[in-house]
């Protein structure tokens, strides 16, 4: 029975971990392209989930289309945020820019509470069965979908950065903005694009988590959970974000197992990623896959 529970928690950890990984990649995308640590990442999940929920409940749009529209909307939203709020800040001290993202985070959370209320709202049932049984383990259908979508997104990111013209341009911008401009790349467009992609992909994660837990401002907490994942993997490594996400997802669930079976402290699930973060940063200050010369903030 206990090994069954352990296995179940490991599976859950991996599934949540891939989601952390995906949101972590979004975080790293923005950091790499524009050197901005985006504390409003969690709000992208929140806004994306609320948009999808609103389309589904208020307009009775089928889930597939509602999902697609929400993701497209978030793409535009991300670009707009970059262009309106962050573009004027190019060249300002990095600490000012970070404070602005914290401000954005507070603003969006309040806005969402004002528009949709403070209570968690469940998504209308989307899948015929809420849970499926795989090898004797109960797995949420939404999580199965999320794993599929997450893996597709990761493969998409890998392809995008390796082969597409814009992906190469983003890497060039991350390497040196001056070099990128000398090649004819518009750095402004790359910044806007990175925010757009980041917001859209975060929205996917937001909708998935929203389906399982209901949509509420607790979703933005996901953005804070992603932080240890990203620092763990190295702030400037897309691959590191995925590995960090998986580690944090697993740690949470294993922490819960140890807690419930032996320690009975009752809060290990929430804090163990941060303990792990402290320990890993003591051994590898630049994260597992980060490069040495990046700034700490």
């Amino acid at each position, binding site marked *: 029975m206990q090994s069954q529970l352990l296995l179940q928690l490991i599976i859950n950890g991996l599934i949540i971990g891939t989601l952390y990984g995906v949101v972590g990649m979004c975080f790293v995308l923005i950091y790499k392209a524009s050197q901005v640590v985006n504390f409003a990442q969690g709000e992208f999940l929140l806004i994306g989930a609320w948009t999808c929920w609103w389309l589904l409940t208020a307009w009775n749009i089928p889930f597939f289309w509602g999902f697609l529209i929400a993701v497209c909307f978030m793409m535009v939203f991300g670009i707009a945020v970059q262009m309106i709020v962050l573009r004027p800040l190019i060249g300002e001290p990095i600490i000012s820019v970070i404070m602005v993202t914290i401000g954005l985070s507070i603003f969006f959370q309040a806005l969402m509470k004002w528009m949709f209320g403070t209570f968690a709202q469940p998504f209308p049932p989307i899948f015929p069965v809420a849970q499926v049984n795989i090898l004797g383990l109960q797995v949420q259908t939404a999580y199965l979908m999320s794993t599929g979508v997450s893996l597709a997104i990761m493969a998409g990111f890998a392809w995008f950065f390796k082969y597409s*013209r814009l992906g*190469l*341009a983003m*890497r*060039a911008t991350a*390497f*040196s*903005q*001056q*070099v990128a*401009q*000398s*090649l*004819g*790349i*518009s*750095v402004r467009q790359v910044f806007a694009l990175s925010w757009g992609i980041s917001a859209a992909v975060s929205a996917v994660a937001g909708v998935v988590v929203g389906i399982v837990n209901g949509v509420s401002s607790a979703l933005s907490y996901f953005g804070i959970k992603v932080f240890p994942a990203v620092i763990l993997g190295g702030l400037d490594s897309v691959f590191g974000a995925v590995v960090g996400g998986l580690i944090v997802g697993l740690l949470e669930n294993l922490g819960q197992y140890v807690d419930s079976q032996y320690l009975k402290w009752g809060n290990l699930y929430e804090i163990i990623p941060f303990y792990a973060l402290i320990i890993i940063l003591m051994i590898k200050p630049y994260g597992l896959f980060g490069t040495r010369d990046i700034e700490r903030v």
Partner: protein
Amino acid sequence: MAEAALKFEPAAETAPPLLSVDNIEVVYNDVILVLRGLSLKVPKGQIVALLGSNGAGKSTTLKAISGLLKTEDGEITRGDVTFMGERINGIEPDRIVRRGIFQVMEGRRIIADMTCLENLRLGAFTRRDNEVKSDIERVYEYFPRLKERTGLAGYLSGGEQQMLAIGRAIMSRPKLILMDEPSMGLSPLLVKEVFSIIKKLNQDLGVTILLVEQNARVALSVADYGYIMEQGKIVLDGSAEMLATNEDVKEFYLGQGGGDERKSFKNLKSFKRRKRWL
């Protein structure tokens, strides 16, 4: 008064140059005046060399043309840069690349964490046609050894990095290449090789080149025309042959002649005085 005369010079009888820089002044950080009224012309299809000592403002001149000055807090405060009859100062650097000016920056500046092929593909970033593949093959014809290098470009030798940087310029199919010290850090043999390729590019592809160099001898050997600048101004210009035989250029840039006068510090003052042509 002299500046005004320069500015309103009547149009030359011959075809207008591909690029003309008229009396520009460049200021860094709003206070540091680097170029003080510099003018030069680059006729289509030629190699023009811009020579001068360290700190004369050669690289700044190139960045003023390519627009990259903006990324270093510099600004053209006076004068015009005209490319193909249109004023281009103040335009974003990526748009200038789209108009056909490509700068090969000092120190190569290839993207170290990408492969050779990815670097070359980025060179063609502004292009939308489907001849990129055949152009990559053409670059490999010029630089066969780049084809063998499949690892990250950061691990290439200095010469190979320079070749990659030039290859990247070819990929963007520019009308004008601005080259900033292609000989930097290369062995004399490689310098020879790189410059023969520059000459070949100019002849085969008809691309116009504005070349900034410390190595005056080799630059004048491939160039059609040359400018010599000092402290932010052009102090001498003429055909490459004329400059190569000019006594002052010989002495100060080619290290020939005048040796007897400079044996002691006693003569240094007169040396300095002589160095100012204008």
